[in-house]
């Protein structure tokens, strides 16, 4: 009995298309986002507040965009690496490109009281816990 095999050329074409889509999607780009999450984040607690610290050396303040909604914080921006006009590269370890990442914290954040500081290549976000989210102590009578 003859078996019904799928057209091998059709399969090849589909495979080629899938590869092309993957290649052109930007996932394999040379930007920092192509090498896993960027920037790396450390999250700390300070009393009731949350502090997010991240390393963004060489990223200018104006190239950073920080948004807060509910308990999600988005950190996006562009990192550019300039070597000057007449430079030829011998070795390149630093990456450049766009980045965009979001982090959800386990508490509701008061969006109006978020403070962001960027100094010496370190970005620190100070997030205050929303008043209505804070636990209330109940006195035992």
């Amino acid at each position, binding site marked *: 009995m003859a078996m019904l095999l799928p057209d091998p050329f059709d399969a090849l074409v589909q495979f080629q298309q899938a590869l092309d889509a993957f290649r052109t999607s930007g996932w394999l780009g040379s930007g920092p986002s192509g090498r896993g999450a960027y920037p790396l*984040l450390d999250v700390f607690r300070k009393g009731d507040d949350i502090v997010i610290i991240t390393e963004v050396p060489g990223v200018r303040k104006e190239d950073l965009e920080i948004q807060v909604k509910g308990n999600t914080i988005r950190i996006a921006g562009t990192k550019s690496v300039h070597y000057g006009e007449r430079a030829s590269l011998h070795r390149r370890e630093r990456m450049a490109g766009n980045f965009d990442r979001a982090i959800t914290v386990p508490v509701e954040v008061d969006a109006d009281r978020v403070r962001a500081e960027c100094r010496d*290549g370190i970005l620190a976000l100070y997030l205050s816990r929303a008043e209505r989210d804070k636990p209330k102590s109940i006195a035992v009578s």
Partner: protein
Amino acid sequence: MVVMEIPGVEKKDVDINLESDTLRVEARVDYGKYGGLEPLYTEYNVGHFARAFALSNKLDQAQIGAELDNGVLTLTLKKAKEAMPRRIAIT
């Protein structure tokens, strides 16, 4: 030119030493800034930076410039006069 990233390091905490053709860069992070913070979730470890480079004698070791901007340290190493290309005129 050597450009390196040393986020979180202030100018006063960067040490650049040149000893027998080895350029050593050490940068220390001020841990005091992390005082009172309790880690909840960490993706990277905060620590000091150190790296050494072997310099060829084609560089003028007396002229090394260093500049720190926004966590990026740029070292400018000048080529020695003897290493510059020389034009030879036909007589």
